[in-house]
């Protein structure tokens, strides 16, 4: 009797452990280990966001780093979802995209500079 209960508890613990391990994954999808852990980086240089469009899984933390010799900002088109301070050379701004959707953004100092984050 003791043995069975022991095994049951063990199995239960394993199931719980497995549940914890899979928490944070997109429901119903097996996301490759590498993508889920990645933080995407967008480089700002020469008045350009590179890559201009990125596609990431929900939950990704995207970081923008300014390698240009002039300050830039990263502001969502609606001006509320995300809005960085002015980034001087080598400054960084990050935002974690939890919700799927398309997020166009621009530099509010040089509004012709635009980019897009697609979250799946």
């Amino acid at each position, binding site marked *: 009797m003791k043995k069975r209960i022991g095994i049951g508890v063990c199995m239960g613990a394993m199931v719980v452990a497995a549940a914890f391990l899979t928490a944070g994954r997109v429901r119903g999808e097996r996301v490759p280990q590498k993508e889920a852990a990645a933080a995407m980086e967008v480089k700002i240089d*020469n*008045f*350009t966001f590179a890559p201009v469009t990125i596609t990431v899984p929900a939950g990704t933390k995207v970081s923008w780093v300014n390698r*240009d*010799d*002039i*300050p830039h*900002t990263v502001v969502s*088109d609606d001006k509320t979802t995300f809005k960085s*301070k*002015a980034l*001087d*050379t080598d400054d960084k701004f990050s935002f974690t995209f939890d919700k799927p959707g398309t997020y*166009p*953004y*621009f530099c*509010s*100092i*040089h*509004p*012709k500079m*635009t980019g897009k984050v697609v979250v799946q």
Partner: protein
Amino acid sequence: MARYIKRNEQTDGIDRRGFLKCMAWAGTGTLCVIKGGVLNSYAFSGIGDLDPADMKGELSFAQISDSHMGFNKAANPDVAATLKAAVDKINGLTVAPEFLLHTGDISHLSKPEEFDAVDQILKSAKPQDVFYVPGEHDVLNDDGKQFLERYGKGSKGAGWYSFEKKGVHFIGLVNVMNLKAGGLGTLGHEQLEWLEEDLKPLTASTPVIVFAHIPLWAVYPQWGWDTEDSAQALSYLKRFGSVSVLNGHIHQIMQKVEGNITFHTAASTAFPQPQPGQADSPGPMKVPAEQLRGLLGITDVTYVQGRHALAIVDTKLEETR
């Protein structure tokens, strides 16, 4: 050194073709003076030979722009030094300007110490009255609150205002707020309505000078060098006999004449930028150190009452070979 351009009579008596030709030389320090419709052009080095009566204006002011205090990259590691050199140029002008216009990008990152540094340097300028309009670098992080506190007394909205000097009507406009993705400079409804009202009581013979940071004409929209709703503003100015629009932002001298409106952009006191389309992007342009000051400068403006338009002279910080 005076060269008279062939008179070309039009209904308003202005030698327009000659004026355009003259304006093209202005970037190298040529003085264009319009007297009774006839253009005289003088190479800047020959100014000493001129009859002072030709040069004397009733109103004289200087424009500086794009000091970008706080910028310290390769294109100019010492923007304070070049701003000081600009002040020296102003103080060395034969006819002392009565006041200064600063057409924006006073600071580079809207930092208090950057604004303070510019204020400090301008303390040694002979003209102590300075009228400012903000550039996009002056309204970072706080929607322009700091700019308004420092320079916006008596202004409306984001910092627009007008004033009179010796019968000339000056209007400072703000076109760097609420910029939209993919957009250009913008004036906005509130400011345009104010402008229309502000101009209403003026007679058409009142000379008008408008100054704003981003050009009010399409210099190069691909780089954002344009204002999306300036056409409406210009329509209010159309009835005036003499309108001058002074801008900055593009860090190089450019001019255009359209009807009675003369558009002129000033050089920066900090760093030059490439000519439209001559580079991938409009960022700071690195040049050999000995060439830098030849691409920076101030603009000296003289208005002579009874004569048709302004004499606009761009002076480099240093004549280079």
